[in-house]
């Protein structure tokens, strides 16, 4: 357990070092929270990708991230936002922009969407600011 945590933390620190730009404290905090959610799914066999997408959510707007997924795998997309964002939601769209039905977890500034693609290819993950002012967010994903 201790070793797993060490690895987890080292991946976290490593991830921070490879970001294309310097991350703000708020983004680092949001990523930690997003990894906490993803960590919960890892108890169910999901492996957390050592990659992330952080940015800023604006009021009444969403952040859209392109991912490439494989049919046969199951995915959870976990996101968290820092204050002053109050509530976010995560949703998934297919390559034509059609929203897909997902399993969902919502807990104010943390949210996740679970999905098993029928087709391999490109999908889009949207992180929406539902309530509160704009703020930093971070998205990670896990698969099994």
């Amino acid at each position, binding site marked *: 357990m201790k070793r797993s945590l060490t690895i987890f933390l080292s991946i976290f620190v490593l991830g921070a070092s490879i970001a294309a730009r310097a991350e703000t404290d708020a983004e680092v905090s949001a990523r930690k929270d997003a990894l906490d959610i993803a960590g919960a*799914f890892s108890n169910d066999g999901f492996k957390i990708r050592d*990659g992330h997408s952080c940015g800023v959510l604006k009021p009444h707007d969403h952040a859209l991230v392109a991912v*490439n997924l494989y049919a046969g795998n199951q995915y959870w997309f976990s996101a968290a936002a820092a204050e002053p964002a109050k509530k976010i939601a995560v949703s998934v769209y297919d390559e034509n922009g059609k929203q*897909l039905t997902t*399993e969902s977890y919502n807990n104010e500034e943390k949210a996740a*969407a679970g999905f098993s693609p029928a087709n*391999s290819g490109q999908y889009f993950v949207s992180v929406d600011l539902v309530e509160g002012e704009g703020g930093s967010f971070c998205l990670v994903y896990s698969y099994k």
Partner: protein
Amino acid sequence: MIRLAKLGLLALTAGVFAATGATDTRRLPADQLEKAVRSDSITIPTPGELFAALGKSEKTNWSGQYRGPMPVTYRNRAQIALNLGGLIADGFIAVEAKDSQQVKNIGSDIIKLAKALGVSERLLGRGNSINEFAQNNEWDTLQEELEATQNEVKSAMQSHADQDLVILVTLGGWIRGTQVVTAAIMQKYDERSAKVLRQPALVHFMQSRINEISPELRQEPLVKDVSEQLNGIEKLVSFPAGKTPTADEVRKINEAVGKVMTEIESKELPK
């Protein structure tokens, strides 16, 4: 421990919430999809992700996908980067095969190739961890460690102003991963497995990243050749959604990526 237990509860709660699902579907316009964030670290899946999908439908003979020892004495930096990516994909294969000795051998070769790029110092600790996890048969942890190793290589490249080589590591891994998956499907064709091969946007994205690297590197014979062949491969993996690649289509992809892989491995660079 308590923290993880709480998170476990969180997952359970999520499962309960999951029953509701998303019901009010909406559609995003094409211009928004075009502007979506795309990055190496989240838009491009790891070889481990690809292998996980393949392993769902058929029992794969992973050790049958090993290749012979490869040279670790390349001089061309682009070629080293491409081979490094391929080698990391080999590491994922060895993890799938649960072959600790093979994982150790590949881990050692990864360090040697990284050394040739001048990025090995930070990786020595990773090499030790890989050996330790392999020794203890900690396969899930090894998968994470391999991805972390790949990212550490890329991170070191960025700090060494070798940013342009990063996409070549990623590309090398994808080509080797696709070679292995197509070979496995050819050995025992089934439709569910073949569906993992539809990846037009992924190949298109990698091609676009190659187009962004410096003109000097892009004009290197190997990079130019790989890039040109990638155009053909993009067409081969561009199946309509819902269509399953036939056995013949799988074979064509395997031949195409196999040809590129042979060039990447070759000691004689294209002229």
